[in-house]
């Protein structure tokens, strides 16, 4: 299907040595969590690999069948713990979709968009920083964390939490935001726009970084489609697909933003560099959305008054997806009219994105393996649920 990428210097596989079975993970600094790959190597070249997941399985779906919808929101925080706002939003939209006539106040919709996009920036900052670290550049990581901290501080002032927010809930958001928070967000936008250039200077144009990522782990469009890869990984392969634009949820259809796609500017279309670059550019686009949303945020209630007492969606099924920072996060929610879901299925983007690792890492080197896993940007909390 796709030609596995072979580093040019080793295309002829000049000298063969004895094969070795290497166990990468579950505790390895570059597997981004408790993820295990068993690699069969010939010297430093990966002949074959097998992924093992499940070390972080904590029965999210089973939990949702035993606690109320509102309590389930709390568990969604722990899925992709770097994009908790997006997870909250997806689950809330899924629950809201079960109702027929629920109207979400405008102010709540704006706050949701602002939070989700800020969280996307924070998540991409972490992805870029840790990616640099995987390649061996430690300094960009701390620059990214410096800016991520500013976003987390804004979130802390909004909902009192820095990581697991439990903020966006069915019917609106948990608390209103005040003028000081809006001012803080505006300040951040002003601060961050020039800072984004720093990442370009630190990493994107670094010759070693380009050589380590360009032409490595090429993910062809066909392979990406077959594996259901979404998010920056898919866009890195040149597919212009973004649910915020193509299947708009919340109020995304009102905002003006671009969808960056990979161009193969430094190597082959769909290589690690393209996936990385898509993330860098997406941060700018997210910033544009935040700026627009903040400038037109209306007054009014921050949650609907249609839900009174216990949250009891009517009997039925709903499927919702949102464009999270790692791809399309979906929830299939089945309600039997009680305040506890009958069945919740989480369609996690990282679960799809990591399942193709075997296919794109064949023929790469061990150092490339790290670069490839990093460029897929997985969060094991979401893969294992």
């Amino acid at each position: 299907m796709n030609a596995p990428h072979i580093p040019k210097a080793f295309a002829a596989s000049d000298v063969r040595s004895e094969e070795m079975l290497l166990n990468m993970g579950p505790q390895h600094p570059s597997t981004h969590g408790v993820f295990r790959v068993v690699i069969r190597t010939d010297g430093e070249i990966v002949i074959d690999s097998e992924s093992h997941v499940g070390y972080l399985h904590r029965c999210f779906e089973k939990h949702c069948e035993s606690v109320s919808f509102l309590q389930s929101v709390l568990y969604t925080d722990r899925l992709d713990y770097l994009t908790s706002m997006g997870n909250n939003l997806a689950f809330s939209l899924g629950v809201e979709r079960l109702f027929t006539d629920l109207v979400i106040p405008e102010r709540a919709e704006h706050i949701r968009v602002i939070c989700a996009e800020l969280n996307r920036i924070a998540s991409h900052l972490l992805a870029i920083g840790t990616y640099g670290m995987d390649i061996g550049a430690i300094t960009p990581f701390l620059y990214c964390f410096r800016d991520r901290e500013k976003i987390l501080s804004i979130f802390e002032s909004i909902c009192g939490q820095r990581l697991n927010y439990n903020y966006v809930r069915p019917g609106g958001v948990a608390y209103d935001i005040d003028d000081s928070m809006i001012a803080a967000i505006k300040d951040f936008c002003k601060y961050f726009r020039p800072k984004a250039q720093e990442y370009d200077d630190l990493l994107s144009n670094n010759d070693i970084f380009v050589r380590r990522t360009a032409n490595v782990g090429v993910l062809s469009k066909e392979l990406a489609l077959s594996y259901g890869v979404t998010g920056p990984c898919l866009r890195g392969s040149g597919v212009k697909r973004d649910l915020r634009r193509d299947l708009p949820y919340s109020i995304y259809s009102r905002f003006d933003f671009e969808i960056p796609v990979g161009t193969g500017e430094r190597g082959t279309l769909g290589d690690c560099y393209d996936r990385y670059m898509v993330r860098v550019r997406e941060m700018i686009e997210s910033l544009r959305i935040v700026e627009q949303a903040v400038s037109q945020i209306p007054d009014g209630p921050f949650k609907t008054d249609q839900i009174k007492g216990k949250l009891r969606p009517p009997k039925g099924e709903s499927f919702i997806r949102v464009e999270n920072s790692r791809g399309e996060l979906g929830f299939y929610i089945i309600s039997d009219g009680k305040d506890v879901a009958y069945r919740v299925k989480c369609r996690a983007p990282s679960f799809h994105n990591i399942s193709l690792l075997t296919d794109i890492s064949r023929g790469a080197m061990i150092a490339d393996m790290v670069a490839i896993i990093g460029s897929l940007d997985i969060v094991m909390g979401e893969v294992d649920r």
Partner: protein
Amino acid sequence: MDWPTIMWWVFAAVTLIPALMIVLSKDIVRLAFWLLASLSGIAGLYVLLGADFLGFAQILVYIGGIMVLILFGIMMTNRDAVLMRRGENTGGTTVVGLLIASVSALGLLKVISDTKWKEVPPVDMPATTSPIGEALLTDYVLPFELVSILLLVVLCGAAYIARRRAEEN
């Protein structure tokens, strides 16, 4: 006893004891490290003889180059208990081995005792580096170049053989 003599004994011990251990050791990696010690002893002897350039050439070539490559090769082989250990001796091989060893030892002893060793009084020897360089580029330039070409041929040949085998696979 002056200090060169003492150092001579030290270096002789550093050369011979590891050499003995190479014969007696059964672990291939340990053996490689004993070889390392033995080669350093020889380098020390060279230095003691005033041939300091030769001594450090010994370290550069044998320890820095060849020993690293030997270790490299050993590590690349599987860590197999059978491969890593040398075979057990049986009675027959011991007898034959002893026989061969004693014959060659006798021969060596005879040669050593028959040779008339020249006794040179210790002198403060001049620097060895520039005479070596001059000799290599004047009187011995042809052998020097021939050896270089031979080494180049060996290098190319090794690369060629390794490549051929990979293609056959």
